[in-house]
């Protein structure tokens, strides 16, 4: 089936199998591998994207459900001119170990700060509770969120 959607401000089309997830379409059909494929059951948050402005796991959205909708992936956060402030903060604080969970954390953090520019530690913890870092690098991730919130 044909799926048409806006991805990072651009109209895109893809042929997808009916049971396919939005994540598969992004990675395998639209050449956007920034959203990572790990648990495929909404447990890890590494495929976090913004669907119509709401933070969701792309693995739990049926590709057909995104038809006609607007999507922002990690690739769409920064600009040609430079990184998104959240990406800058993750780089600055070294909030990356293996890096696999980073795109999901970056998207979830950008979503948090857009809604709540000065989150408390508890609010950060809550907002990032759906994202797992298997390297357990949470301390530096917190540093990154605090830095991005202050910038």
């Amino acid at each position, binding site marked *: 089936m044909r799926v048409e959607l806006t991805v990072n401000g651009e109209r895109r089309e893809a042929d997808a*199998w009916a049971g396919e997830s939005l994540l598969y379409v992004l990675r395998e059909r639209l050449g956007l591998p920034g959203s990572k494929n790990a648990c495929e059951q909404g447990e890890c948050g590494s495929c976090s994207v913004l669907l119509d402005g709401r933070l969701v796991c792309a693995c739990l959205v049926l590709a057909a459900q995104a038809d006609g909708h607007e999507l922002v992936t990690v690739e769409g956060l920064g600009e040609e001119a430079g990184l998104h402030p959240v990406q800058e903060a993750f780089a600055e604080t070294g909030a990356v170990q293996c890096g696999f969970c980073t795109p999901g954390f970056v998207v979830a953090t950008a979503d948090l700060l857009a809604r709540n520019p000065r989150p408390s530690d508890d609010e950060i913890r809550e907002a990032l509770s759906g994202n797992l870092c298997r390297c357990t690098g949470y301390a530096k991730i917190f540093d990154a969120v605090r830095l991005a919130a202050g910038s």
Partner: protein
Amino acid sequence: MDVLTPTTLDEALRMKAERPDAVPIQGGTDVMVELNFDRARPAVLLNLNELAELRGWSRENGSIRLGAGLTYTEAMEAPLAEKLPALAEASRTVGGPQIRNRGTVGGNLGTASPAGDALPPLLIGDAVVELASIRGERTVPLNEFLTGPKRNALADDELILGARVRAAHGAQTFMKVGPRNAMVISVVSLALTVDRERDEVRAAFGSAGPVARLVSARLADLDGFPERVAAAASPIDDVRGSAAYRSHALSVLTARAVERCLQ
């Protein structure tokens, strides 16, 4: 495999009548896991995301009507959270933000898991489930709608429209036992309200029997209530906890919830 995406409720009901084997998908937090792990290959998926009729909530003759497409995130927001505090508390324990932005009350009713977090809060609000097909609409009390683990009274040609719930008339709370605060399927859960208007305490538990279940008592008859709630459960041993632990936890949670609500 096909996906049908109706844009009106009438169209959706016609499609469901023509294809009773179609599996409804709303937030996808249950259905997509089945698809991703190759556990289910339904011939047809019925995408309910475009149905405005299923969204939001409204006041109706003193009760609250929740659309089947109401998300957990929406159930956490004022003013709804003030009218149904136990549902708001339960919603806060569901998954993480990504899951709460997609998962819905209607999906919880459709999946009918014994661990469905929205079910105990709806039971203490005497929830009635609204169902529709091209044959017409009907309502089923939630305790009759839930017929077994992952089984409900929905007919093949029907869709869940929403639920009508009694707004809180007194303190309410929700408690859940799990290995961490977020991203947890409950080991055992409990919703409780002290309803002074009806002179009644109502408790409903999840993950402690084949279906979520309601137990009530007069306010003057609270001695031994935690033990009675635990005795009404029929928990099993599974990967998340033992039956004995669940029974014990249920009586502890009930005592704590009563104390919290009577303060």
